[in-house]
């Protein structure tokens, strides 16, 4: 059987700086008819450039310098541009990562789909409209006949991606290239979109080139996998082979660096260093500098392909027949060894550090002639939680549920509308700016985006010293004691070392650091004032999985040695499993379930928690799980549904759910949920009870 797509020795370079960047460097792969082929790799490894090279849609600085791309035997790189246009959208279609930006904002959805029909099938008029409707129904747009005349901004993120898929499907392509199709989407929406893609593939028999960084998505979708590193493919295998026994040290490390429940008491495996710049010339193996098993040969000779098993090749000297498979065993052995063991956390925390009661943050909506306040966006609507000294509470929820606002509300970066934030016995809400300032050293925050969290115009030393200066930390004796004895000017060095950066880096500027290093600097900046509580707002969601492991290890180690308490805001369940003691699940401004990690993740009670957990792709060969499909999207917090906020999407909704917000049901001293499925406490109808929460 001949392959549908055959790429040979593709080389694509980008003329961005003084030296050309070899984004794709000698890539060879084959995709069979009707299969899903996953191209897995971390950011900057050249996987998107590969996809764009296939479409011949490179950015203007990009250039294909060598290789061939054949679809059904025809070399795309030899086609004139006019003939290439007959391939795009017809034989090969593509969907992109950002559905928000990839649709033309001023054209209706129907117009954008019918463009393809006109271009490739010459459909007009009634037949065209009919086909548009058909495709929209196929991708699961509800009420398609009405919505086809709407504009993209009227669709939610998940629906926009469905429209993108509809555009791609309109040409009835043989190959669909999906470039990180679900990365920008929430996990429940991701499950919907992945489902849809699987369905469509089965129905239409097209091949899919799935480009992703997410091992979970690969496990769910792919038939064959290729791992890409620094511009080239280093391992290809069937999914079964790959997940049973990944061969390349890099692939092994990727698996080992995934956080999860089973790794709770140990450090995560990390890949030291970072991806080498692709503008550089490579002599040996590109991974050699970061590889634990590298020896001289790796640094002098680039490895050729070695066969590990049928359908499983790897580009690594370890698997070369001559250098022997003995080393292979040593990898396996090394993997089992934990990187560093942490003391297990004390199970009981007696002293409470932070107590948030019924916190509300409402943003007014102005409308009408005089800009009167006509309503409120209830971003946070009655959240209560407690964090013990040295403990970790994970706040989990999808984007738009208000979890970040909770963090800012606690820190008083946003003035809460109501409720109380009690830190170590002191009420923070309504405190004068000056009094609050005295307390600010106690609680700090780490942000999501390492690129916008450091001022590009300040040196690292100034960034770290800013908080110390503002809060006069230098004059005080460090409470935690890790830097009290140091002479002035040495604190910064000590802090940088503490987060794993050499002290001389303090004279540099942020742009010289990678994402992971910046996040370390942000942690050092927060640590500089000796906080006891750190609010971590998705600190690893912008990072690659191997870098995420480094940061998680650091956070865990700091908690052990300094006794920090964390409020960990995240949407990543495996991070929660790895790091948290307790979990609170948030939906539309309210906490719907709360308990210890084992209770909530092991035995979720609330239908939303159940659906959320089931939607997370699992990095397992044969995931034995039933995905609970949630319909629709997160409603607007400006106009939450009456009764239980979750009832429009809930598979178990009952009449009572439409009317009253459920009270708390306790399952243990720590595990509570708010759902009508469970016995309700008395007097649920009274308002006071509605917002109250049973405490620990």
């Amino acid at each position: 059987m001949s392959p549908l797509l055959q790429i040979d020795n593709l080389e694509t370079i980008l003329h961005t700086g003084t030296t050309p960047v070899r984004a794709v460097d000698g890539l060879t792969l084959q995709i069979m008819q009707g299969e899903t082929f996953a191209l897995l790799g971390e950011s900057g490894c050249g996987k998107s450039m590969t996809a764009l090279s296939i479409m011949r849609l490179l950015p203007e600085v990009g250039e294909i310098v060598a290789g061939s791309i054949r679809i059904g035997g025809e070399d795309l790189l030899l086609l004139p541009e006019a003939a290439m246009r007959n391939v795009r959208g017809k034989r090969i279609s593509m969907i992109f990562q950002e559905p928000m930006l990839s649709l033309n904002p001023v054209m209706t959805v129907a117009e954008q789909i019918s463009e393809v029909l006109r271009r490739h099938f010459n459909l007009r008029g009634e037949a065209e409209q009919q086909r548009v409707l058909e495709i929209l129904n196929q991708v699961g747009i509800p009420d398609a006949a009405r919505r086809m005349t709407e504009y993209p901004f009227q669709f939610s993120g998940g629906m926009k991606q469905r429209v993108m898929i509809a555009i791609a499907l309109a040409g009835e392509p043989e190959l669909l290239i999906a470039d990180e199709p679900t990365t920008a989407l929430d996990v429940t929406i991701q499950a919907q979109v992945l489902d849809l893609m699987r369905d469509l593939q089965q129905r239409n028999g097209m091949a899919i080139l799935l480009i992703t960084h997410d091992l979970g998505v690969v496990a769910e979708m792919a038939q064959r996998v290729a791992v890409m590193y620094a511009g080239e493919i280093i391992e290809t295998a069937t999914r079964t082979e790959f997940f049973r026994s990944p061969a390349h040290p890099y692939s092994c490390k990727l698996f080992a660096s995934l956080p999860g429940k089973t790794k709770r008491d140990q450090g995560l495996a990390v890949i030291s260093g970072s991806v080498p710049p692709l503008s550089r010339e490579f002599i040996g193996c590109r991974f050699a500098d970061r590889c634990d098993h590298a020896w001289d040969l790796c640094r002098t000779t680039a490895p050729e392909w070695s066969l590990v098993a049928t359908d499983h090749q790897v580009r690594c000297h370890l698997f070369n027949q001559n250098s022997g498979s003995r080393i292979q065993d040593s990898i396996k052995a090394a993997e089992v060894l934990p990187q560093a063991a942490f003391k297990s956390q004390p199970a009981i925390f007696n002293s409470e550090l932070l107590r948030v009661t019924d916190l509300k943050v409402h943003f007014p909506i102005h409308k009408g002639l005089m800009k009167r306040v006509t309503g409120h966006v209830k971003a946070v609507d009655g959240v209560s939680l407690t964090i013990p000294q040295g403990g970790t509470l994970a706040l989990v929820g999808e984007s738009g549920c208000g979890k970040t606002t909770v963090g800012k509300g606690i820190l008083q970066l946003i003035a809460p509308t109501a409720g109380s934030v009690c830190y170590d016995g002191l009420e923070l809400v309504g405190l004068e700016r000056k009094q609050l300032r005295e307390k600010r050293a106690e609680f700090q925050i780490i942000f999501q985006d390492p690129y916008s969290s450091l001022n590009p115009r300040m040196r690292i030393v100034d960034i770290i010293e800013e908080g110390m200066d503002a809060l006069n930390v230098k004059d005080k004796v460090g409470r935690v004691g890790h830097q009290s004895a140091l002479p002035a000017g040495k604190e910064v060095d000590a802090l940088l070392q503490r987060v794993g950066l050499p002290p001389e880096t303090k004279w540099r500027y942020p742009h010289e650091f990678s994402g992971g290093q910046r996040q370390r600097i942000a942690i050092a900046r927060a640590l500089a004032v000796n906080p006891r509580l750190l609010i971590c707002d998705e600190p690893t969601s912008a990072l690659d999985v191997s870098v995420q492991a480094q940061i998680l290890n650091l956070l865990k180690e700091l908690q052990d040695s300094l006794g920090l308490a964390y409020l960990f805001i995240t949407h990543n369940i495996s991070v929660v499993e790895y790091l948290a003691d307790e979990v609170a699940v948030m939906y539309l401004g309210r906490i719907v379930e709360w308990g210890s990690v084992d209770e909530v993740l092991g035995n979720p009670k609330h239908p939303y928690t159940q659906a959320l957990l089931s939607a997370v792709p699992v990095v397992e060969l044969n995931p034995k799980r039933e995905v609970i499909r949630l319909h629709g999207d997160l409603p607007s917090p400006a106009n939450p549904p009456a009764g239980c906020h979750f009832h429009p999407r809930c598979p178990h909704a009952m009449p009572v759910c439409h009317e009253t917000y459920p009270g708390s049901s306790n399952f243990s001293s720590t595990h509570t949920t708010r759902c009508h499925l469970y016995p309700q406490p008395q007097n649920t109808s009274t308002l006071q009870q509605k917002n109250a929460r049973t405490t620990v």
Partner: protein
Amino acid sequence: MTMLFKPVILWTDSLIYLLVIVVLAFVWHVRRNEHMLAPWRRVGHSASGMAALTVLVFFIAVGLLDTVHFRPAVENNDNGNSEKVYSVEVLSLLDIIAAPLRTRVEKTYSAPFAAHLYARETIELPDGGQIREFPRLQFGGAHLQNPEAQLTADVTWRAAAGAGLGVFVWCVLVILLSASLAHRDNVGVLYTLSAIRRGATEIPWNAVLVTLVLILSLLGAALALSVHYHILGTDKVGQDVFYQSLKSIRTGLVIGTLTTLMMLPFALLLGIMAGYFRGWVDDVIQYIYTTLSSIPGVLLIAAAVLMMQVYMETHPELFDTIAARADLRLLFLCIILGVTSWTGLCRLLRGETLKLREMEYIQAAHAFGVSHWRIISRHILPNVMHIVLIATVMDFSGLVLAEAVLSYVGVGVDPSTISFGTMINAARLEMAREPMVWWALLSAFGFMFALVLSANLFADAVQDAFNPRVRTWPVKAGKPYRRKRQEEDPETKPNAATAKDVISP
């Protein structure tokens, strides 16, 4: 002790000195900070930008020479102790250097390189008869015995000599430059020279040097000729047009730079405050700039300048010299232009601050309890400075052009101030003459075009370097969009075949 002159520092002079100090301090500061230097390096890599800068340097040099003002001493012999009395006329260094041009005033119009007046005059002959003819100029070409026969040869010879001198100076500069570059990089001088010629240097010295050789040879020729001729002719009152053009440069530069200097504090303070504090502060500031910008610029300027004129007419006692009066009027014009043009920058800064205040590093600063003014000065101000810089260089050429229009409308500089606007205004009336007097207009056009064009090109380079998002110039002209696959690719990549064999499902 006798002073030959009494220094005079006019208002605009002091502000120019201040500006020079600010620029020097800024340069010193940038040189010490690698990350601030990086965008300037990108400016340095732009061939058009550097060529434009070379031209601008000459304009700025003339402008600065024209800024050093003083009153020369006049010998007073009335009372025997020969007490020094200073002239009421305020002169600048440029006036002294160009004294021949300034003092050699003809009777009226004369064309460039002419030896005769442009108008016939009735001349009394020694024998009592009268003829109407073009009289000889008092200064222009006065050294020629027989202008009709000698003029062309004399002009050519002098121009060639002057240009030759310019080229000689250029050669010396080239050698000095390549020697210093060679010394820095530790390579041979000849190697450096060829690198410059090929354009292989980091800074496009070849573009700079080509511009320089053009300027220097033109300048040399102009200097050599202007001693004996009015190279750009004379105007109605017989003043040298070349001299007027040189004097206009300072006026243009003052308007282009001081206006921005005047408005910058307002735009910065109000724009950042509006964006940072939001709420009622924002409402008030937005109201102010919407109101101001809703008055059409020319009309507001016209109204304000008219009122200023009235004020000056009715308070003549405030000004001791004509120069001081004209200067103050120039300054007020800058202020008025500044008041009408700060709103655009203010709006830009407000928008940028609104974006910045949501940045996580500002949130982090809030979490540390850093004070508002410290956040503004350490976090926001440095991150909006590129906008200020771009706005400053982009505004410059517009302001120089605006001066000409305003002076034409009658609300520009003082009529006694020489500027491009007053030159055009005076020359325009002569367009209707038969035969036409075209040289004054053409000189104003040429000088202004050179100044504004080089300012525009330099502004483009700065904008490209500091704001990579808005590219106004293609990265590389003429680069093919996509290249076809090379035929010989199995040769270039020998392991292609092996790779293909191994990977097959």
